[in-house]
């Protein structure tokens, strides 16, 4: 398929703006660019067809089953899109006088309040633009906490289980901390003894997700948070897996001091092909003064923006956050409400266990027993015995029209495939998907050689990623054929 630049024809253009109704001003020659930008010259018809063709070469939740573990690819309600496109939200300048944005501030305030209740936190910010951004913000609250107590220079270690998502240690490093990795047990749960040995006077905190990245609920959670607190550290909750427990169990009740949420996972806002998301960060009252500014406070019964936040960590993004994403999440929470929120979690866990049961017929599970909202299969034995790897199963699934599960995560399981069906699939879809997974397994075992050449029916075959990394071509070049 051609690129836009390859469809460009000299002199082609559209007409979107009227003639300038005022004299044209020119800047001094020394301030202007020497060469015009070589952007493509296209008609609107060209552009429209181009993107329609691109859409056919992509795959969204709207196109089919998307059991990506740790991503929570649940259905994205269309009403949220409609609400987020209201002029009363899109046409608002972020620096309008407060009296003219009461609705926007009310949206942020309502979202904060509802998310606090769902998570057991006392305060929230919606400023971070993504989960990793939220992790960064949450860890900065912890950094500030220790600094304020005069321990900023010695409490510089963050304890992270080796089953954690890569963003956790990367976040700790961005906050000037060193990472102490503790091994997880075979079920992905925290090794209590190793944790006891790891905490000390240099501990700033522990980063944890519960259920963990294997989809198992760590029942020792209260002991874990106590161990860290007793050592003078704080406990941070990675909210990526909240869909398993929202409305049923709250991180605040488990002893966590601050958390981040992924509104684009748990709260149904769409993934957009990789963003924009929103990484709300919640905390207990003692950390609230450190939240990014402005804070939303209630003044005279009405939510208002408070710019005077002397203890704040500052800002992690310009303005207030990915506002339209928050609008979608708020609509979702209002729609689900008191009963719908825990229902979503329970049905998510039911779906995962049902799918796990069906797939256990052929696939080896990393952990037996009940899982939470996701589970991990391992192709380690198949890889050794017949050369069929997790990657091969994933590519074979592409030919069957299903998005594969997450591959090679968590790192503590070899040849891992992590599946998370979410609560928005019907039983018949789970059965259909399970049948496909099992058929793929059978085909792979019957002819292990053939599977390495899959997929065959997708727009491209397996790409040469080695070449892409050795000789990076990161843009179209007019001089290169």
């Amino acid at each position, binding site marked *: 398929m051609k690129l836009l630049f390859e469809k460009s024809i000299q002199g082609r253009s559209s007409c*979107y*703006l009227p003639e300038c*109704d005022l*004299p044209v001003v020119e800047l001094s020659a020394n301030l202007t*660019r020497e060469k015009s930008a070589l952007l493509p*010259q296209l008609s*609107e018809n060209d552009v429209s067809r181009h993107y329609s063709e691109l859409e056919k*070469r*992509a*795959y*969204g939740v*709207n*196109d089919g089953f998307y059991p*990506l573990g740790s991503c929570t690819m649940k259905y994205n*309600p269309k*009403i949220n*899109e409609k609400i987020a496109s209201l002029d*009363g939200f899109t046409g608002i*300048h*972020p620096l*309008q*006088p407060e009296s003219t*944005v*009461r*609705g*926007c501030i009310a949206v942020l305030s309502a979202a904060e309040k509802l998310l606090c*209740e769902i998570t057991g936190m006392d305060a929230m910010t919606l400023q971070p*633009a*993504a*989960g*990793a951004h939220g992790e960064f913000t949450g860890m900065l609250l912890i950094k500030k906490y220790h600094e304020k107590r005069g321990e900023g220079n010695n409490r510089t270690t963050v304890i992270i289980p080796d089953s954690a998502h890569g*963003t956790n240690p*990367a976040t700790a490093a961005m906050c000037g901390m060193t*990472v102490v990795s503790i091994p997880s047990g075979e079920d992905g749960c925290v090794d209590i003894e190793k944790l006891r040995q790891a905490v000390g006077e240099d501990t700033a905190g522990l980063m944890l997700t519960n259920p963990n990245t294997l989809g198992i609920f760590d029942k020792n*959670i*209260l002991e874990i948070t106590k161990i860290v607190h007793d050592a003078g550290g704080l406990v941070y909750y990675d909210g990526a897996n909240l869909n398993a427990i929202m409305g049923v169990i709250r991180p605040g009740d488990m002893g966590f001091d601050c958390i981040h949420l992924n509104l684009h996972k748990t709260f149904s806002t*769409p*993934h957009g092909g*990789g963003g*924009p998301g929103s990484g709300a960060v919640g905390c207990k009252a003692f950390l609230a003064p450190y939240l*990014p500014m402005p804070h939303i406070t209630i003044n005279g019964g009405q939510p208002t923006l408070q710019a005077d936040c002397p203890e704040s960590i*500052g800002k*992690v*993004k*310009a*303005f207030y956050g*990915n506002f339209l994403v928050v609008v979608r999440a*708020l609509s979702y929470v209002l*729609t*689900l409400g*008191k009963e719908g*929120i825990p*229902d979503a979690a329970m049905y998510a866990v039911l779906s995962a266990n049902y799918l796990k049961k069906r797939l256990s017929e052929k696939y080896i599970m990393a952990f037996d027993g009940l899982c939470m909202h996701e589970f991990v299969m391992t192709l380690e034995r198949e890889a050794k015995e017949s050369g069929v790897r997790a990657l091969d199963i994933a590519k074979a699934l592409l030919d069957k029209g299903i998005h594969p599960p997450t591959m090679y995560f968590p790192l503590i399981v070899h040849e891992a495939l992590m599946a998370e069906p979410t609560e928005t699939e019907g*039983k018949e879809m789970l059965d259909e998907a399970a049948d496909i997974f099992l058929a793929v397994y059978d085909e792979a075992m019957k002819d292990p050689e053939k599977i390495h050449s899959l997929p065959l029916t997708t727009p491209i*075959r397996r790409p040469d*990623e080695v070449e*892409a*990394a050795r000789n*990076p071509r990161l*843009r179209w070049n007019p001089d290169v054929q």
Partner: protein
Amino acid sequence: MGHYISITDEQKKEMLDAIGLSSLEELYDAAPSHLIKKNGLNIPHGMSELETLRTMEALAAKNKVFPTIFRGAGAYRHYIPAIVSAVATKETFVTAYTPYQSEISQGILQSIFEYQTMICQLTGMDVSNASVYDGATAAAEATAMCRERKRTKTLVSATAHPDVIAVMQTYCWAANAEIILIPEKDGLIDAGSLHDMLDETVACVYLAQPNYYGLIEDAPAIGQLTHEAGAKFIIGINPIAAACLKTPAESGADIAVGEGQPLGMPLSFGGPYLGFMAATSAMMRKLPGRIVGETTDSEGNRAFVLTLQAREQHIRREKASSNICSNQALCATTAAVYMAAMGPEGIKNAAVQSLSKAHYMASKISEIAGFSLRYKGEFFHEFVTECPLDTEKLMSALEEKGILGGLPLSGGGILWCATEMNTKDEIDSLISVLREVKSK
């Protein structure tokens, strides 16, 4: 109660039977029972779609949508062609995940590859990443790209946007790295002070172009000073102005960043926006975040993949230079559609009209006594005037006429903005209102 669950009660029973349980609650038996929230959440009951719509519409109605906007300061109202939202709302683009499975994601990957190319074309730089959260975080990430063992200090011009400065300060504090403001002089960066501040501990210098006051800086001169001291030069630009102004590449930038909101994203009370980052080839591997590259598949067809992933957090973990995972994919595609639809002439036109209307407006406002232009330098589409009146009263008077006036600055004065969306009539109305308020 609203929900999106497809499983019927009958199916639920079949599924529970299959796994040997009799109720959903038993799924949580592994958790300590006292953690289970027995009385439920203290939030309102759920609603039907119609009720949710009414509730949210009521909130939206509490906001005032100004028909006429003369305020910029980091968020700009430009004309967004209809094709842009038509593409940006295509369901598959909206509901797709990150394109890790490249065989079924060529559409997303190609659109990002095209976006990367266009950012390079706009800025003149060699490589671009797939975008970051916004212009302010892009600036902060750029400073991290420049820090190395002996050079860890960031110098940022005081003429940059206050939010950009604030975010850079937070990120530098996080990394235990020093960041110092370069003083301003007559609304521009004080090159003399910069010269004195540059030494062998400085990693980078950040300059805004145009700057917060709308003024056009002498970027090549600042770039030269910076390089002579062995530091890296980061320029934060406005992408519409980039159609007219000397590019970052032409100004000697090592890294170009900026806020991409003007490229087809509505004002949206501040987000989601778009941070673009482009650099010289020498700095390619220091770019954070996702990057799409071109390669071939096993049959020799052109194929796009996420590449150079070994820089990123999911592989490097604590050795990654940034924890960033998401980009702003849909916003990047939005910007690409905008640039493709407007084309080089269209963007230049939007830029020239913004520039011209701002200059007309500036000359008319400064004719009113007490509203003189504060700075002498050349400006793009924003400018600062003094204000002889109580700014709140003035803004209220404008508001009554449906006009969002310029931004009152904390030290006094008003930062005005004009874009191609402002007609001559609108500007003339503004002038009459100003004169009217002044005369009272």
